[in-house]
């Protein structure tokens, strides 16, 4: 195993802790850049969706995993971003400007939703965001002059200052660049004072406040950033699908996003992308397994939701840190090899501490 001796404070907040990180992430980048030449069209499209969901997941991770505020209406931000992008692109606005507008508008909406977050906590916030999600979905369906109502709206190919991106590869590279930029942005945010303030709020609001953290400002900021990333993800989603309608941004989509960050691993940047991989690859795996299952199970329409629910229950019960937590355990096992202790990651059991007084 690798021993790292910390000799100065800067090492605590370095992006890459050691050479191994640099090597493996560079290898991953090379693989991702080479992907269009390695994979067929269909798999490249799936990879694009993983990147898009990863961007949205990063936003939700920032909110739920790092600030401890969870939103059951996150698909609303996705919807706001997607519709903003669709409307502006169809008006002929260049892609980067429309994308910035989509992000900004979603962030503005996020601030509006974040305002009740200053007064309510826990489940109340969940219900506030849930309500907000329903209202946005209804607005998208009813505001027909702009959104086209329930019949949806077509989205043009992105127009990058004259270069029309109409190939899968081109769009994949756009998504890759944006995903890398947003991952770096989140990583840098998390090692800055702002990011540490978010984590402090998650761990204990009262102690964070007593350390001089302005709760209202940071919670609103967290909502705004999270919504902006969701909006950007939504904008890319609109371009990828080329057709959006309000029912793509409903409560089930919100729950899928939540499921994604929980299964990926709350409180880790890796978790956002691992969760996205899970969310995109699960339907494929279920489809593949259909051939091996008896027809009564394999052809049943409810199979996918049973599998999703079962996996979610299994993760919450047995692996609360999600897929990333599983990876951490495997890595720790190898690092400590002869000395791995069985209850190393065991959770403390206790009676429920009262949430009502928080």
């Amino acid at each position, binding site marked *: 195993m690798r021993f790292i001796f910390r000799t100065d404070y800067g090492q605590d907040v370095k992006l890459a802790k050691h050479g191994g990180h640099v090597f493996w992430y560079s290898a991953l980048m090379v693989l991702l850049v080479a992907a269009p030449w390695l994979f067929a069209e269909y798999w490249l499209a799936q990879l694009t969706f993983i990147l898009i969901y990863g961007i949205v997941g990063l936003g939700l991770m920032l909110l739920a995993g790092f600030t401890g505020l969870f939103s059951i209406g996150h698909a609303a931000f996705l919807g706001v971003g997607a519709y903003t992008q669709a409307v502006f692109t169809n008006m002929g606005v260049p892609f980067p400007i429309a994308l910035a507008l989509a992000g900004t508008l979603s962030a503005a909406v996020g601030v509006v939703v974040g305002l009740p977050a200053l007064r309510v906590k826990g489940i109340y916030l969940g219900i506030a965001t849930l309500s*907000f999600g329903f209202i946005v979905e209804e607005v998208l369906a009813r505001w027909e002059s702009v959104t086209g109502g329930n019949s949806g709206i077509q989205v043009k190919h992105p127009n990058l200052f004259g270069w029309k991106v109409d190939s899968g590869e081109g769009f994949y590279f756009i998504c890759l660049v944006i995903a890398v930029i947003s991952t770096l942005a989140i990583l840098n945010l998390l090692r800055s004072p702002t990011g540490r303030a978010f984590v402090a709020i998650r761990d204990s609001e009262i102690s964070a406040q007593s350390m001089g953290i302005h709760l209202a400002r940071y919670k609103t900021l967290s909502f705004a950033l999270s919504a902006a990333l969701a909006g950007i993800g939504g904008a890319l989603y609109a371009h990828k699908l080329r057709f959006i309608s309000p029912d793509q941004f409903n409560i089930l989509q919100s729950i899928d996003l939540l499921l994604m960050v929980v299964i990926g691993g709350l409180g880790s940047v890796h978790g956002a992308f691992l969760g996205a991989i899970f969310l995109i690859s699960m339907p494929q795996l279920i489809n593949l397994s259909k051939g091996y299952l008896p027809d009564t199970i394999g052809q049943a*329409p409810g199979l996918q939701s049973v599998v999703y629910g079962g996996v979610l229950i299994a993760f919450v019960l047995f692996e609360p840190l999600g897929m990333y937590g599983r990876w951490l355990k495997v890595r720790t096992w190898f690092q400590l090899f002869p000395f791995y202790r069985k209850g190393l990651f065991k959770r403390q059991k206790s009676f429920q501490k009262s949430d009502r007084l928080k």
Partner: protein
Amino acid sequence: MQILQLVISGVSQGCIYGLIALGFVLIYKATETVSFAQGELMMLGAFGGLASMTFMGFPYWLAVISAIAAMALFGVLLERIVIRPILGQPAFSIVMLTIGIGYVARGLITMIPGIGTETHTLPVPYKDMIWKFGGDANGIGSLVLNAEQLVIIAATAGLCALLFAAFKYSKVGVAMQASSQNQLAAYYMGIPVKRLNGLVWGLAAAVAAVAGLLLAPITFVHANMGFIGLKAFPAAVVGGFGSLPGAIVGGLIIGLVESLSGFYLPDGFKDTAAYIVVLVMLMVKPNGLFGEKLRKKV
């Protein structure tokens, strides 16, 4: 007459919301967790009633009792097998867990070949009983009373009285109240808190089954009927999340607002009225109408 008609349909719809919200509140009070599977439990209860009525051929009363008993047992088992292992974890994990339970329940029902994907009618004896009052010769402007709606209102009132008596006079009820106020203190006083949690889940599932059986004659029985549970959250919040009478009152308010806004306001407000009400409530009075105000003292 028009307004009376709207009020009655709003109240009966509100009773359903109130009953589901009652399930949330029971579970929240006792275990401080929020169950997102309450709507799905309601759906399972309705399917249980359907199964015992049409496939086993039970008479109505027996079918209702057996469906409720089966759901109560299911609730107890659910708590024992799935919820108890993560007792004491953050509330968020239990929320995700109940979302997972909802997914599985909905999926499993749809997987039953030939039954799960269909819409069924529950053959209740009071079907198609309608009374008309007032109005002119053509029946315009008359007040139409549906037996289904009246049964919902009566059954909700009865159930509330029953629960009230149970919490006030029975030993188990008093113990539940004690453990809902302070689990640790109740445990020290010799109350079996874990077993009580199981009972509370059973009770919540039974109440959900009642709601399902009452709702079934109006909306039919199908796998997605549980989504109505999402409208019961506003009811619980408006009433105050920790208050049993609050759940019913909140449900009535949501039902009334929905029914009246569906008639007097433009299209689209009917579906969102409940959520607009809850957002306003959270901004004005986050503790709800009957919610207790707790403050941390150092």
